[in-house]
């Protein structure tokens, strides 16, 4: 075997081994030492990141991709499944980024979860999640991807419900599981269709064998899967509810890695989608609706984590729009840059929350610019990167997406919604910065706000470097598959920047109004719509469970017996035959003389007629 190939594949498998080792150690009954979290878990992720840089540099310098099939799992006459890893440019670029972000988050979590007695278990769960995510990302067949898919779903459930004594956290964890399950129906449907029609779950084989088939049904299944996992409109309420979990969980799962799994699935399957206009249009419209709707909801939220959660949902909608434009690589680029600044925004929020003694309401923050300068600077940098400020990380992906949107033959309403959502992004980002960092403090000066702990500052620093230079680095080193349209009118080129600046100025104007109250602002319908998250949780979470639970209870306890014994069984027979019996007996009046007379008359008549 060529030494480069050997080094490539073995360093990637070594990376898996390094990550699995701390998990396997926990299966013995020996107690872990107190700093297992930082000495083993965090170190493992850091080492795995450094190991994964070797194949990354090999890939960037030689363009090498690899596919490793290690072990045959099951072989039937029509379908065989092997343990197969695909290290192509998508997984090779995503894995170091995911490991870098996870390393920073784990280091942050050593500070954030320090007072938690089960901190080691928390880190174990995070590591298990990471392994499942890497399995998902590097899977070369749908079965392995499904294993990773379910793994991240279950770990999400366990981590959101970390504080399981809190009923709201349990409800949120249940929501996450149920909405993801609805999405899984789509994935399983797609897998079943592919298994029966294409006889393979292997990615390369599926692409070749499905060339002349109508792929609409499995693609709809995959889009449903992405809708569930990536919180698109319709299956989105679980993502803001998932903020019940600890901040490191929100930073890792619900911003950078897990929620992009749905988009990643569609990116992997993009060759199947290229020629299917229905699927592309559906992605485009669904993504545009999601990005606008969730950005609208983010405008009026007061919980800092909820604002960032809706921001994540909005960016996921943008990624879906990009897939609908038939630009999966731009969507992937946005996944990579989004991981950096979104994780940083969550870590800044966590730092602020802990500093203010677990206060999450932005109306009770303020003035942190002076009290926590580094955190507020990182918050500002992250927000600027999110809005697509030129030459920060978000610019390279977001601006490319908006340019592609502007120059494509595209649904005009989707274009409008995406641009509106881009300006809303600037509005709620400024709202966060204004309420958290600017002005004077709106909290009691009793909590010792400090930034002395390197476990907080170093992760923020690393992610800040990523948010500033990450986009540039990725863009310089990858080759774009589809030629971008480089010539366009100046209005289209500057459209993203113009709407963002417009949003920024509007938000500044509205923010300054908060300290100058001229007259009472009336509560209007759009405000209720936005604050109550479009009424989606209120309607869906009450109506559907009530109907199904009531029906279930009725069927189980009453209707089965009532049906079989009363409506179709013995009682029904009795109820059916009684009228018949009474009608028949009522007909028998007992008029014997009349009956005999009629009988005699009929006999006489018949005799007379037959005689003639």
């Amino acid at each position: 075997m060529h030494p480069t190939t050997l080094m490539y594949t073995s360093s990637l498998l070594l990376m898996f081994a390094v990550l699995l080792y701390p998990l396997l150690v926990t299966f013995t009954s020996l107690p872990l030492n107190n700093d297992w979290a930082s000495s083993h878990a965090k170190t493992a992720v850091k080492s795995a990141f450094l190991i994964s840089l070797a194949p990354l540099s090999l890939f960037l310098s030689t363009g090498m991709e690899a596919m490793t099939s290690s072990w045959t799992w099951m072989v039937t006459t029509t379908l065989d499944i092997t343990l197969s890893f695909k290290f192509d440019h998508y997984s090779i670029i995503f894995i170091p980024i995911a490991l870098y972000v996870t390393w920073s988050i784990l280091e942050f979590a050593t500070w954030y979860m320090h007072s938690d007695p089960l901190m080691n278990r928390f880190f174990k769960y995070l590591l298990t999640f990471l392994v499942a995510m890497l399995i998902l990302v590097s899977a070369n067949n749908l079965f392995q991807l499904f294993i990773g898919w379910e793994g991240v779903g279950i770990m999400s459930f366990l981590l959101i419900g970390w504080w399981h004594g809190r009923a709201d956290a349990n409800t949120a964890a249940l929501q996450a599981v149920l909405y993801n399950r609805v999405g899984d129906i789509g994935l399983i449907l797609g897998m079943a269709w592919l298994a029966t029609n294409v006889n393979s779950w292997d990615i390369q084989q599926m692409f070749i064998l499905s060339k002349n088939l109508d792929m609409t049904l499995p693609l709809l299944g995959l889009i449903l899967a992405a809708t569930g996992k990536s919180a698109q409109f319709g299956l989105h309420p679980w993502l803001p509810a998932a903020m019940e979990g600890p901040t490191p969980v929100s930073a890792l799962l619900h911003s950078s890695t897990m929620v992009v799994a749905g988009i990643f699935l569609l990116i992997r399957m993009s060759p199947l989608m290229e020629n299917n206009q229905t699927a592309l249009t559906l992605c485009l419209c669904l993504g545009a609706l999601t990005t606008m709707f969730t950005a609208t909801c983010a405008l009026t939220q007061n919980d800092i984590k909820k604002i960032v959660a809706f921001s994540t949902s909005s960016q996921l909608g943008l990624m879906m729009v990009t897939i609908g434009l038939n630009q999966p690589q731009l969507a992937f680029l946005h996944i990579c840059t989004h991981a950096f600044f979104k994780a940083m925004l969550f870590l800044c929020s966590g730092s602020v929350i802990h500093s203010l003694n677990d206060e999450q309401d932005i109306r009770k923050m303020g003035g942190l610019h002076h009290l926590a300068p580094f955190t507020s600077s990182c918050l500002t940098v992250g927000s600027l990167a999110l809005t697509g400020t030129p030459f920060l990380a978000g610019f390279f992906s977001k601006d490319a997406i908006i340019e592609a949107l502007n120059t494509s033959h595209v649904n005009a309403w989707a274009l409008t919604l995406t641009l509106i959502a881009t300006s809303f992004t600037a509005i709620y980002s400024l709202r966060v910065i204004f309420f958290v960092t600017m002005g004077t403090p709106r909290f009691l000066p009793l909590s010792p706000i400090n930034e002395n702990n390197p476990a907080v500052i170093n992760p923020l620093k690393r992610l800040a470097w990523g948010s500033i230079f990450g986009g540039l680095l990725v863009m310089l080193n990858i080759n774009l598959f589809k030629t971008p349209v480089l010539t366009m009118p100046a209005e289209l080129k500057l459209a993203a920047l113009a709407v963002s600046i417009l949003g920024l100025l509007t938000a500044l104007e509205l923010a300054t109004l908060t300290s100058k109250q001229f007259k009472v602002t009336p509560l209007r319908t759009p405000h209720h719509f936005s604050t109550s998250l479009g009424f989606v949780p209120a309607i869906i979470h009450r109506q559907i469970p009530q109907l199904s639970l009531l029906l279930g209870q009725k069927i189980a306890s009453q209707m089965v017996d009532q049906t079989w014994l009363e409506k179709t069984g013995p009682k029904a027979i009795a109820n059916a035959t009684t009228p018949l019996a009474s009608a028949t007996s009522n007909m028998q009046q007992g008029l014997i003389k009349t009956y005999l007379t009629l009988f005699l008359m009929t006999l006489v008549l018949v005799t007379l007629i037959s005689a003639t």
Partner: protein
Amino acid sequence: MAGVGFQRWVRTLSKGKISGISGLLPACRSGEILTYFPINIGEIAAAAKKYNIRVEDYKPIADNGEGYGDYPQLPDRSQQDRDPAYQWDHPDLRRNWNEPMHWDFDMFIRNRVDTSPTVVPWSTMCKQLFGFVGFMLFMFYLGDKFPAYQPVGPKQFPYNNLHLERGGSPDVEPEEVKNYEI
């Protein structure tokens, strides 16, 4: 209707004598578990005492042959709707010990259906949400009908639209093709 009469007939016949396994349990023998829809004031009072409710509050579920017996009809309010600041015996369940349980108690726990009042009435919420979704679907349909795209035109080739290169005869005068306008 016939069922009710049948039940009363059975009751009068087997006063105090309950057959089967129910006859072995002391509570059944005294008529505490095996219950029927209460008719007179004595049965109502006994049922209210059994379920730990005041007689004024006790209201049996209507007898439609579904077999609820004398179980009380409690208000359809969820546990989430109850006061979070009150010192409940079970604070997470928001319930006191020996409190009468709603027939659908498992539906009204805090993880499930919530009946707390909403900011806006139900009809308004439904109208706004489904109106929004309908509006969006309609606008997407319009956007599909009138898509946004950059103007493109056919390429303008030189040399009389490449007349000779495309196999045209040099003797024939090529027709003028102009794909642009200045």
